[in-house]
């Protein structure tokens, strides 16, 4: 307690000098006087007494020093002195300070923003209890090229009862749900989950409760709602718990509200109901497939879990039907599922890139302050002569650069605050967890750490140079000529080479991504999304008969087509798809009918679907209204299917059927072949597809596509909606958007990565250019005398120009060579982010090299011009 008190007072003493020097001195003087009087009383003469007293009591100034040390905190005293000195010295060279602060602030801001994103998306644990123990469990089948496949409840129960590694395993799935409200039916996102899922995740409702085990057994109609749904529908009132809502035609009682922001992996539903299939998991085989999540027992590793689940899979395969004998189970950490390897790689790449920008910025400032330190050699020499130790001088240099970095860090953090807000708004919507980005303590801590690192890095080289140099002689030299500058220059040249090497690595990366972007952008999706309006239409829950739905879609499309400004309208079960399934089909060819397992996609489309979406007909005909329920079953296939199943033959007129040759499914006749559509994303190769007639098999809901004559298709939404309402009031309409927008989300992450990396690399290149300019400029300035002599003895200006430019280009060439090697080496690691180019794309490498050389030449041009114009006499008179 007493020592805390002492420290507080000493801190206060440092800040306020609460006991004045004069006061302390007075006290000491009195002491001496009294001492000498005592001596005099013992018989010494006054003078002798004073001398004896001094001898005995020690000098006043030494005692003063000791008291000053005790009064404050000596190191803090020195520090405030250093900081004051640093501020003064920075103020004395405003242009250096401005350049340094601006560069560093930008670099710190960039690093802080990217760290904020990396932290939110990759580093922070998921919002579940002990999230690192959570895993997704997938069914795999290498023979069917099935990865990350979902699993049936029956299988999950087998895994659950046989394993020793998981504390529990649960299932979930998103289901499109109709909510009946006062103003008509509405589509919302529902989650169907096994009752053990919430305890498994360690999540509890913020209001109300979860299902009890009896309720789960009895399959009561009880629902949990999301925080968002609660706010929107019930205004956050606790009355919500106990209220009843109508979902898919059945009344459900709300028993709980989940925490804000809760979602299960990537499923973010409005309402959560109990999975009914889960209750029959012991008895019913097959059925729907579900997402499966498990919690590892404490201290079980993922490797261990994977080994055990693989063993279980082998055991199950022995008892399984023939078609399911090659199944495997893969265990994937939940975090890795939520943010996939591609996004991870891209983010780490961006993080690395922005750190390179930071290093280049720091190198530039180091180089500048090295140049400055030579100019300040005299100042340092004076201080050394006056008794400052080398350590003291280095400490002052360090303080100076830390002050610089602190100012930059402050400005950089403010910039980062704005940057992070921009990212939250304009970042790619499909990058998971991006909404969690914020300037929190962790991010601020990072900003602080990187600022401190900047301060140390910038001080390092000048400090070493100062230590190496013998400080004293330059006092005599009058500070004009430069002594000991060679090692400084060597460091600066090395820094410029490193800057160029880093810049080239970034540029190559950006170049490759830009090239990939061009390729991806140029991909023909197989349809024309411009001027097309997209919406989803569900048939009312009461429509259980096929013909009711067929009729609804048919009449709705008729009405829509009658709306002025609508060119054509079509419907498909689902346009954008995640996965295709492998099924057995029987194909009729020239040489007979063959059954084969085939990964393909089967959809139902309306007659004008292809016309509305703009997919070309390659052979035969489109489906027509005539292909109704009573007409012979027909299909249209895509080109990929034609090439796969009828290589070199014309498929039109051939037949195929689902299932093996002896199955009792009907034969479909192929009536047409259409172009391939990329429905799984632009960068995924199209899979074989079969299109049935919507009139022959109508799903519960469809995607509608309306080709309009308007460049803003959304303006037609009202008229189209009204047309559908005329046919059926109770059919939910949702997801209204221009098709081009839907399509744009495919490109968002790539756009984000490409634009950010390009920005960083341009910044890096400019900084490297400025660094080279600074070095050459300085080199010309210090060699004015030498250049003057050269000109005086007959060197032509062009010769001088070449000499200077050569110096610069040598450096950039060295950087280029190093950087290209680095880019080749790193390119392989990032290859999975590329599309349509190889990591060693010669075009990119050449362009980037030329660009860099041009910037380097620009950096040398102006100093070289200046060197050419040196007047020999003036230069010689300089000293």
């Amino acid at each position: 307690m007493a020592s805390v008190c002492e420290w507080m007072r000493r801190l206060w003493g440092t800040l306020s000098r609460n006991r004045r020097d004069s006061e302390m001195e007075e006290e000491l003087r009195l002491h001496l006087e009294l001492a000498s009087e005592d001596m005099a009383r013992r018989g010494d003469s006054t003078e002798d007494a004073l001398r004896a007293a001094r001898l005995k009591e020690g000098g006043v100034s030494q005692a003063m020093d000791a008291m000053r040390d005790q009064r404050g905190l000596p190191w803090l005293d020195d520090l405030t002195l250093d900081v004051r000195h640093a501020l003064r010295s920075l103020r004395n060279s405003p242009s250096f300070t401005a350049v340094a602060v601006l560069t560093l602030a930008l670099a710190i801001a960039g690093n802080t923003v990217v760290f904020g994103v990396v932290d939110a998306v990759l580093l922070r644990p998921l919002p579940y209890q002990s999230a690192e123990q959570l895993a997704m469990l997938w069914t795999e089948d290498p023979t069917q090229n099935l990865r990350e496949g979902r699993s049936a409840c029956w299988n999950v129960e087998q895994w659950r009862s046989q394993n020793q590694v998981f504390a529990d395993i649960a299932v979930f799935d998103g289901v499109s749900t109709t909510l009946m409200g006062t103003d008509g039916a509405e589509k919302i996102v529902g989650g169907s989950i096994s009752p053990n899922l919430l305890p498994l995740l360690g999540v509890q409702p913020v209001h109300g409760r979860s299902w009890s085990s009896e309720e789960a057994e009895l399959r009561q109609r009880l629902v949990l709602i999301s925080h968002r749904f609660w706010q929107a529908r019930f205004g956050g009132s606790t009355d919500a718990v106990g209220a009843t809502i109508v979902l898919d035609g059945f009344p459900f009682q709300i028993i709980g509200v989940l925490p804000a922001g809760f979602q299960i992996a990537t499923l973010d539903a409005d309402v959560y109901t109990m999975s009914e299939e889960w209750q029959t998991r012991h008895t019913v085989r097959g059925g729907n497939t579900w997402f499966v999540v498990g919690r590892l027992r404490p201290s079980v590793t993922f490797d261990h879990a994977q080994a055990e689940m693989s063993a279980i899979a082998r055991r199950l395969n022995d008892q399984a039907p023939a078609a399911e004998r090659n199944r495997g189970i893969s265990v994937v950490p939940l975090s890795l599922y939520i943010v996939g390897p591609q996004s991870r790689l891209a983010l780490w790449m961006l993080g690395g890139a922005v750190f390179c920008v930071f290093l280049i910025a720091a190198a530039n400032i180091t180089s500048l302050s090295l140049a400055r330190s030579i100019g300040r050699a005299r100042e340092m020499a004076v201080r050394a002569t006056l008794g400052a130790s080398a350590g003291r001088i280095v400490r002052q240099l360090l303080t100076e650069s830390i002050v610089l970095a602190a100012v930059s860090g402050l400005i950089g953090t403010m910039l980062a605050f704005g940057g992070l807000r921009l990212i939250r708004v304009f970042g790619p919507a499909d990058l998971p967890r991006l909404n969690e980005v914020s300037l929190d303590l962790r991010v601020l801590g990072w900003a602080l750490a990187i600022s401190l690192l900047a301060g140390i890095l910038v001080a390092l080289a000048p400090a070493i140079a100062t230590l190496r140099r013998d400080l004293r002689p330059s006092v005599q030299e009058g500070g004009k000529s430069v002594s000991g500058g060679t090692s400084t220059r060597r460091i600066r040249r090395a820094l410029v080479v490193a800057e160029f090497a880093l810049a080239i690595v970034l540029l190559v990366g950006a170049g490759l991504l830009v090239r990939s972007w061009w390729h991806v952008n140029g991909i023909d999706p197989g349809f024309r999304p411009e001027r097309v309006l997209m919406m989803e239409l569900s048939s009312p829950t009461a429509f259980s008969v096929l013909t009711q739905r067929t009729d609804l879609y048919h009449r709705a499309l008729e009405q829509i087509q009658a709306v002025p400004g609508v060119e054509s309208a079509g419907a498909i079960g689902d346009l954008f798809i995640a996965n295709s399934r492998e099924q057995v089909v029987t194909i009729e060819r020239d040489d007979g009918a063959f059954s084969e397992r085939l990964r393909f996609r089967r959809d139902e489309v309306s007659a004008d679907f292809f016309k509305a979406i703009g997919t070309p007909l390659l052979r035969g005909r489109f489906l027509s209204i005539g292909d109704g329920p009573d007409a012979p079953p027909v299909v249209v296939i895509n080109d990929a299917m034609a090439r796969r199943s009828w290589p070199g033959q014309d498929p039109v007129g051939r037949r195929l059927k689902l299932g093996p040759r002896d199955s009792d499914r009907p034969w479909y006749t192929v009536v047409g072949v259409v172009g391939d559509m990329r429905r799984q994303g632009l960068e995924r190769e199209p899979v074989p597809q079969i299109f049935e007639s919507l009139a022959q098999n109508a799903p519960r809901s469809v995607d509608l596509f309306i080709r309009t004559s308007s460049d803003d298709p959304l303006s037609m939404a009202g008229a189209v909606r009204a047309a559908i309402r005329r046919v059926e009031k109770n059919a939910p309409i949702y997801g209204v958007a221009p098709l081009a927008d839907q399509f744009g989300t495919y490109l968002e992450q790539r756009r984000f990565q490409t634009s950010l990396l390009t920005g960083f690399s341009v910044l890096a290149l400019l900084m490297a250019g400025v660094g080279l300019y600074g070095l050459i400029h300085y080199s010309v300035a210090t060699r004015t005398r030498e250049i003057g002599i050269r000109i005086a003895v007959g060197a032509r200006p062009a010769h001088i120009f070449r000499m200077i430019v050569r110096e610069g280009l040598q450096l950039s060439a060295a950087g280029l060579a190093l950087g290209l090697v680095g880019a080749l080496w790193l390119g392989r690691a990032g290859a999975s982010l590329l599309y349509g180019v190889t990591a060693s794309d010669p075009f990119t490498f050449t362009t980037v090299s030329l660009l860099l050389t041009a910037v380097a030449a620009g950096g040398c041009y102006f100093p070289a011009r200046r060197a050419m114009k040196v007047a020999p006499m003036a230069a010689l008179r300089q000293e």
Partner: protein
Amino acid sequence: MQGTLDLMVMQTLATLGPLHGYAIAARLEQVSSGAVRLNMGTLYPALMRLEQRGFVRGEWNVTENNRKARFYGITAAGRRQLTRQKEDWGRTVSIMQAVLGEQG
């Protein structure tokens, strides 16, 4: 020894009441028959430290021959500290004596 110096100063102030620096030094020298000689560089930082810790308080006043001096007096916290330190010191001394006696 920093601890012993503090102890001696506080003991002096506790017995004699407020004193200025020179008087403390003179008194200590007298009591110890010249064995303890404190120069200014030792005494005044120590007084300052004791003041910072709240064990003594300094005040400007006049001496009997009318000179301005800073007088130091022990505080209540100082007295408590003094009692505690004296006990510690006594214990240390008796332990040392026991140990040294054993060896002898």
